[in-house]
């Protein structure tokens, strides 16, 4: 549906220097899917989104929606943002304070090329307000809305013209934590119900994992990895992705040889030999970094069956209610492990650490 190919953007900063934002960004979003651009601030994700919107003019590349090319540097095509017909929700929501809820929502129907009768506008606006549960507030001043209501209003305004494509720029970042979690479900339900193709920009990895069909992790203008949420989380392809999405333990090592199963390798680390998984074709004596998620570090007071088991010592622990975080000393180093709170090994005592080979991802050292 949406195709972005070879996108390059740059802009002058306050001091007039040219800043490069997106660098050779290429991805595709199938019809009806939610695609997330995830990355730290300044990684080029917002600029990419704004290029799709037409608010930014890229330096090179091509953007098309369905059969329609909205930007192409080679064919010199640039469709003005108000002619693209995409819905967009801004980070600040950009609710017009001089209009009420109804007027805010009706605006796109009033200014577009297509003319609607007053009755049509009314019907469409009320329908979309009902969808975001703001129907009763239609006459309320926009300035009198709470954060969550503003967010829903911004969404209603973006959806009212039934756009081909919905663009969301960190729509949940201005909400408090509890509300953000609730809106996450709402947003997901709405997107799945309407089956509207959506591009979502965020720096919050849990949001990205929760909402997306597919995620592109960006850093310094480049897309690092594209994949389904589970793929990104469980099989990161670079240290950056492993570190940025979720919490992880990094362990240095060097490759000894192939493991028992295809894709498995044996790696020597500070505390012994580990069987690991890698998508790269590793060779003997390659330097690698292992990424192990804390919840995949299995702790037990009795020795578990199988390989990849070591004895360790509890260095510190933090009780967090639904789980308990252990820092265990294994060889010379500290490993973070997340366990069920029923594990009550006191600080200083010994316990066993087991690492499943599928959960230890070996990445080529930078």
């Amino acid at each position, binding site marked *: 549906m949406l195709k972005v190919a070879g996108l390059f953007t740059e802009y002058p900063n306050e001091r007039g220097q040219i800043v490069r934002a997106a660098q050779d960004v290429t991805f595709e979003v199938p019809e009806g899917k939610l695609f997330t651009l995830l990355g730290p601030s300044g990684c080029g994700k917002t600029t990419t989104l704004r290029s799709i919107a037409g608010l930014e003019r890229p330096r090179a590349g091509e953007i098309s929606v369905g059969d329609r090319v909205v930007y192409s540097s080679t064919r010199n095509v640039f469709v003005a943002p108000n002619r693209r017909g995409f819905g967009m929700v801004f980070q600040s929501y*950009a609710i017009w304070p*001089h209009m009420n809820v109804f007027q805010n929502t009706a605006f796109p129907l009033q*200014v577009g090329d297509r003319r609607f009768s007053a009755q049509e506008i009314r019907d469409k606006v009320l329908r979309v307000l009902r969808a975001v549960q703001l129907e009763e507030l239609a006459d309320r001043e926009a*300035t009198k809305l709470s954060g969550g209501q503003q967010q829903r209003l911004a969404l209603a305004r973006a959806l009212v013209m039934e756009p081909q494509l919905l663009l969301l720029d960190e729509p949940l970042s*201005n909400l408090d934590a509890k509300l953000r979690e609730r809106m996450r479900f709402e947003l997901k339900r709405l997107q799945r119900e309407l089956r509207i193709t959506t591009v979502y920009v965020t720096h919050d990895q849990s949001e990205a994992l929760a909402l997306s069909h597919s995620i592109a992790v960006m850093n310094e203008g480049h897309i690092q990895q594209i994949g389904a949420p589970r793929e990104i989380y469980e099989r990161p392809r670079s240290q950056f992705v492993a570190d940025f999405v979720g919490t992880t333990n990094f362990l240095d090592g060097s490759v000894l040889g192939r493991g028992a199963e295809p894709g498995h390798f044996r790696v020597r680390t500070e505390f012994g030999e580990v069987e690991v998984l890698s998508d790269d074709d590793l060779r003997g004596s390659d330097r690698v970094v292992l990424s192990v998620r804390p919840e995949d570090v299995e702790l037990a007071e009795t020795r578990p069956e199988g390989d990849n088991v070591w004895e360790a010592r509890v260095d510190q622990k933090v009780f967090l209610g639904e789980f308990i975080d252990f820092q265990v000393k294994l060889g010379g180093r500290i490993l973070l492990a997340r366990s069920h709170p029923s594990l009550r090994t006191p600080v200083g005592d010994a316990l066993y650490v087991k690492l499943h080979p599928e959960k230890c991802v070996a990445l080529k050292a930078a």
Partner: protein
Amino acid sequence: MQAGNPAMNAAAPFALRRSFDWKWVVIGLCVVFTIYIAVVPLAFLLWQSFFTPQTASKAAEFTLGNYTSAYGSSETLRLFWNSVQFALGASLFAFVLGTALAWMNERTNTPFKTLFFALSIIPLIIPGILFTVAWILLGSPKIGIINLALQNWIGLEKPLFNVYSLWGMIWVDGLHYSPMAFLLMTAAFRAMDPALEESATMSGANIFQVAYRVTLKLTWPAILATLLMLFVRAIESFEVPALLGLPVGIHVFTSAIYQAVHRYPSQIGLASAYGMTLLLITTVGVYFVSRLSSRGSKYATMTGKGFRPRRIDLGPWRWFAAAIFIIYFLLIVVLPFAVLLWSSFQRFYSVPSWQALNNLTLDPYRFIFTYPNLARSVWNTLILSFGSATVIMLVTSVICWIVVKTKLPGRWLLDNFASLPMVFPGLVLGLSIMIFYLNFDIGIYGTIWIMFIAYITRFMPYGLRYNTTSMLQIHKELEESAAMSGASWGTTFRRVILPLLKPGLVAGWIYVMIVSIRELSSSILLYSPGTEVLSITIWELWENGQYVELSALGVLFILALFVLVMVAQWLGKKFGVKE
């Protein structure tokens, strides 16, 4: 009373032992000083307007005569009409010019944008009197360079335009204050979250729909406030009406007040009646400006951290925009300064020509440097500006601490008192202070002290504003932790508040210093031989017809102010002052 003052509460055991707290002395003095400074002149202006002048033989008597003579004549109606025409014209002209430039600068890709920076400092470095004189040298029908050049080159019979006219006054005043409109509208554009416009674009609105339905509607309070502010400022304007209007008999309130005082015998009662009228107009104006600003902030609270705004690509039109801007730059900076520079190297004022070029001389500069009044007026100016800036910033820091940080009852009144002088046109303030110290002879009339008081009164609101901005950013807990560490109020104020206030203090100090250096309209009623300031010296040179000497002094004055503003900007950067 002490509920809002944890410094006091925390130190209560110590305070009890020490029966006397200096804090209340400092606060009390500052409050009394502020009320005295701000309220007394107003009260006396009002009083005077209802009384006949006091003479040696006859005490003042109550009369409505000043008002009847002020409002009974058709002359006053004409005065009023002239003032309104002039102020409306000048403010609209400045607004249109300033807004167009602000929009070009903020929202389009016009080239040469770095020059816009100059716009923010021009009103500071070219005082009104010099700007007006420069435009007389450019646009007078007899000696104006533009007129003469056009007559020579194209063979025009009559001079193209006459600066000694209502249109000429509107032109010069509007041009001079267009940078103010530019700054105010730039702030308005910046205060708006660009996403508000972008979301309209994304909704399918074209550039005109965005401009009308979103940008204009949202900046409407700011537009009205700017227009009102410019109007108030124009109706207070003294230099332009005095230099351009008086010679041809176009009178406005300010020039009429000046004439009433300088007539013999001087008609102070009539001047007061005019002054009260003018004060009424400016008060209503300032009141609505503050109402509008608080309404505007209702909109501002909704903005988030925006992305850098999208620039509208003007295409080939951007060169047209650049041309407009360069012409504007010529009119407001290059031509006025060039004409002063040219005439400052002449023995007698003459239009540029090859012959005149051979007569270049440094005589005017020699004259200026040996001018007996010069050293004294420079010294007076420096003392006054330095002194008033220092006093204002220190006193208003205490005032604004009371207003912002305590819960003392009636503190809002104090805030209003300290801001009250804002409504005073400089000339009216000079008038009321003059009247007061003429009647209550404490020996400062005719000395430099009366001007000192005028300056402090006039610029106190600026100091208060700078300090308040800074004070709002100082978290209450910073003071509280100083109190918990055992510091007294005085120590806390000196060691915690003042240092944290430094950005605002420094910026405000420099600003007050610069505006005091250029002050003319209050000083002109208060100076006497020996207490002239620089702008008065320029005024006197003009009255004597010493144009070339005036030009030399003007050039030096502008250069000095330029250096001062540059130093201020550099200091501002160093201390992290933002605007």
